[in-house]
């Protein structure tokens, strides 16, 4: 009996003490911040521009930042954050990263043998790396190592491939890539131009047989408002992207729905890189 009384007494006393301390000395705790924090992905990737999720939450709650800066937050969670903060939801198109290069070992030539640190930034220091195309993927995996979600695969044929189903579009790889060939595009866009070289077609073809030759076939097929040519490089207008069946018109097959298939699959593909002119039929 004493035991019960004493234990209850200690409990009640402590409870009272805590309650009193909080009542008289407690600093105001912001319940809003806690609720918002729960809606954050918690990966602390820093893509929002703040030092981690909590920092961003503090900025959100104090009104210093707008919701929607976090690219990896789901649309649902973003909506809830907007409701909590009492601001109108601006909506945000979900984005994914795309490595805009088709230059696997099968297509891209190498101008030199690189025997150095296995890292794209280091390779850039040695005459810009070993690939002939100075706009192509170096294939040494700096982006894959930087990805906090493990969405980038380094293939054995020296190209980085983003898996869109894992990618949350945080954009870390975009800043890490020394060639700047990774782009953030709307997840809904069906086709992408897997080439980044603005050079003239003969220059590109010399170093890579899977390069955009600027033939304008896609522009003609889809119309100027869906595809456009920038220099000698076709680009998708992501505001108004063309549908997926446009890939058939591209002679070098750089306009595709997904990354360059690996070597074994590519050999079965209709586009033989040696004779691209023969396969121009839509």
């Amino acid at each position, binding site marked *: 009996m004493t*035991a019960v009384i004493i*234990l209850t007494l*200690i409990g009640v006393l402590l409870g009272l003490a*805590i309650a009193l*301390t909080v009542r008289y000395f407690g*600093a105001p705790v912001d319940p809003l911040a806690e609720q918002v924090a729960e809606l954050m992905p918690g990966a602390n990737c820093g893509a929002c521009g703040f030092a981690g999720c909590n920092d961003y939450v503090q900025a959100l709650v104090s009104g210093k930042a707008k919701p929607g800066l976090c690219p990896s937050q789901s649309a649902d969670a973003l909506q809830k954050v907007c409701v909590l903060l009492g601001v109108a939801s601006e909506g945000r198109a979900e984005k994914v990263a795309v490595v805009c290069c088709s230059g696997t070992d099968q297509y891209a030539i190498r101008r030199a043998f690189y025997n150095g640190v296995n890292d794209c930034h280091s390779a850039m220091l040695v005459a810009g790396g070993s690939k002939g195309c100075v706009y192509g993927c170096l294939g040494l995996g700096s982006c894959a190592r930087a990805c906090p979600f493990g969405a980038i695969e380094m293939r054995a044929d020296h190209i980085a491939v983003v898996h869109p189903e894992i990618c949350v579009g945080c954009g870390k790889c975009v800043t890490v890539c020394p060639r700047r060939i990774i782009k953030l595009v709307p997840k809904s866009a069906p086709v992408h131009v897997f080439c980044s070289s603005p050079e003239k077609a003969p220059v590109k073809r010399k170093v890579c047989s899977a390069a955009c030759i600027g033939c304008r076939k896609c522009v003609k097929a889809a119309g100027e408002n869906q595809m456009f040519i920038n220099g000698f490089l076709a680009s998708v207008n992501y505001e108004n992207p063309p549908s997926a069946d446009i890939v058939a018109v591209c002679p070098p097959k750089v306009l595709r729905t997904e990354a360059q298939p690996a070597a074994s699959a590519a050999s079965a593909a209709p586009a033989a890189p040696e004779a691209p002119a023969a396969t121009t039929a839509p």
Partner: protein
Amino acid sequence: MIAEYLSLIIGAILVNNFVLSRILGICPFLGVSKKLSTALGMGGAVIFVMTLAGFVTALVHHYVLLPHGLMYLRTIVFILLIAGLVQIVEVLLQRFSPPLYSALGIFLPLITTNCAVLGAAIICADNHYSVIKSTVFCSASAVGFALALLLFASVREKLELARVPRCLEGPAIALLTAGILAMAFTGFSGLGG
């Protein structure tokens, strides 16, 4: 008198180090030892809380539990006390010393459930230490904990640069290192008391 306390302190810090000899408080030992700076924060927080907890639990032990013969309740009572105490301290710190609060940060609530704190209180109760002796013992134990944490954090900072076999990466190599560190600490046995 002084010799007694000295041997108590040396015993608590080195010979029977809480982490490396008694294997208590392993969770924060492994969890917050990745960087020296966070280890320092955690060490400070542990010293602070353990000293306070040692004092309060000894008071309750001597003046509430012993007179009423309620020794079998001590575990639950001590946990209650430590948890409540940390809560109060946290609120007070947040109010009166925000810099210290933000420095200790997440560590304070972590300590609430730390077996090292409870362990120290129970060891004191088992050995029938007086209130003063309990407080001294607990703070010395906490210093020992902080020492082990700092040593381990320094080792881990170096370890981070080492090439570890794939299968041993992360916690595995940390535990191995902790084991080697513990073996080194057995060298202190026989020192002091």
